[in-house]
């Protein structure tokens, strides 16, 4: 299959390295685009051709990524654009264009799914195309892959979890070190865990976006961000955290889908509770009619997210009869 990648940030660069380990018969990287321009080669881009900077490639062309997408002869598009939860752009336009051109889509961008989940899924289905989005929620935790197989005949009744690594890191530092929120946040920013503008994380909006995707994808609902009751962690003081700690508890930001209602709010969690994970870890718990409760724990961001992208790509390769999804070589990331 021929593949194009839109987005050449941290995830894009990591993914391109991993793609180099597939055989060219399985997966050929035809093009990579960043916000400034793109490299497109009809015969494929070699595994070591791209450096950290796309611009330095001799065949780099300035121009909008959509230009590459429209002219590319490709079977699959991986969309790794920065998230915009209000408009879904630019990812939304790229996904629409990819589907219109007959490409299967893999994306890590939450924005388009929060804004237009039903539209995109229907469009893909009506065209006989696949759209996979494992990387949008829980980083490397296999949520949708698990659901596709394991919960196929089961009914998910409720979902809850810690789905934002930044807030979990900040709350963990407040719990273990007694730090006030602002100092824990500065530390998280210094370590590259928190963004320079952390409002979407701290105010619970990022978790709310993930809850919307989970509700729509796993429970067949048609929810939007405005349907979520959101309370972030900005009002949690170190004194309140200590009051929780004295009772053998801590405070965590929990996203929840239950009885059709979606909420994000800080909650008291006992230290032996299955959802009580610390640092940048995420935890998600499903309650289903056949299985009962199942909890998954893993890194919610960073390099582990590439595992989700690779899993989606392999799933599509398998469905298209291209391969059984085995990597050649097997070099660890």
């Amino acid at each position, binding site marked *: 299959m021929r593949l194009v990648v839109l987005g050449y940030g941290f995830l894009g660069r990591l993914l391109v390295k991993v793609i180099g380990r597939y055989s060219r018969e399985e997966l050929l990287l035809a093009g990579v685009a960043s916000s400034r321009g793109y490299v497109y080669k009809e015969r494929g881009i070699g595994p070591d051709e791209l450096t950290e900077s796309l611009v330095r490639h001799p065949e780099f062309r300035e121009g909008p990524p959509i230009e590459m997408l429209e002219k590319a002869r490709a079977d699959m598009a991986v969309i790794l654009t920065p998230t915009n939860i209000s408009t879904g752009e630019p990812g939304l336009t790229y996904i629409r264009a990819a589907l219109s051109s007959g490409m299967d889509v893999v994306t890590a961008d939450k924005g388009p799914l929060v804004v237009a989940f039903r539209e995109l899924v229907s469009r893909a289905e009506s065209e006989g195309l696949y759209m996979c989005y494992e990387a949008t929620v829980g980083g490397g935790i296999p949520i949708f892959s698990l659901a596709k197989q394991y919960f196929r005949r089961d009914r998910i009744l409720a979902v*809850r979890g810690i789905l934002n690594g930044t807030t979990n890191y900040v709350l963990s530092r407040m719990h273990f070190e007694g730090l006030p929120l602002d100092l824990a946040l500065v530390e998280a920013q210094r370590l590259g865990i928190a963004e320079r503008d952390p409002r979407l994380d701290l105010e619970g909006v990022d978790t709310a976006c993930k809850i919307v995707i989970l509700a729509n994808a796993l429970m067949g609902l048609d929810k939007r961000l405005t349907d979520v009751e959101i*309370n972030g962690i900005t*009002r*949690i*003081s*170190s*004194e*309140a955290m200590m*009051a*929780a700690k004295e*009772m053998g*508890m801590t*405070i*965590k930001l*929990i996203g929840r889908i239950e009885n059709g209602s979606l909420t994000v*709010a*800080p*909650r*008291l*969690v*006992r230290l032996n*509770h299955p*959802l009580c994970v610390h640092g940048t870890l995420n935890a998600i718990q499903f309650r289903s009619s056949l299985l009962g409760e199942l909890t998954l724990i893993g890194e919610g961001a960073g390099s582990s997210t590439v595992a989700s992208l690779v899993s989606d790509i392999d799933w599509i390769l398998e469905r298209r009869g291209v391969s059984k999804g085995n990597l050649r070589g097997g070099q660890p990331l």
Partner: protein
Amino acid sequence: MTLGLTDRPGSLLAALESIAVNGGNIISIVHSRDRITGGYVPVSISVEFPSSENVEGARRGIEERGIPVLSMESLERRIETMLIIGYLQVEELNRVFRNRGEVISLTVGGGSRSPYMRIVFSAGVEERPRLLTDLSTLASERGCLLVPEEN
């Protein structure tokens, strides 16, 4: 629960074992020897169990030992903790708790800069959702944030 024990040594012990392995904490045992019926002595036992699953486990264990459970009544109450970020008037809190739950302890801290209230309370399983909804509404009306316990 009221059990029908035969008037033989060791039959009470067998019942108590089932209660103990299910985490039961015995509050009282009352023998009613004056009410022997069909060869059974009715024995009423009040027990606290950690969960309703434990109650059922104990009942199964007792019956498997050949002891009939003549009647059983359970009053499910949970003890849990919540934080309120901000400060509510105690009278307002009492009004919401009235007939729905009982405040076991109330701690106020954080000073005027970041006040919080920590409430340990008990509530019946049926009353709890309404209690939390009303507390959340009150907190929101007063510019406070309710942080309940995750079960």
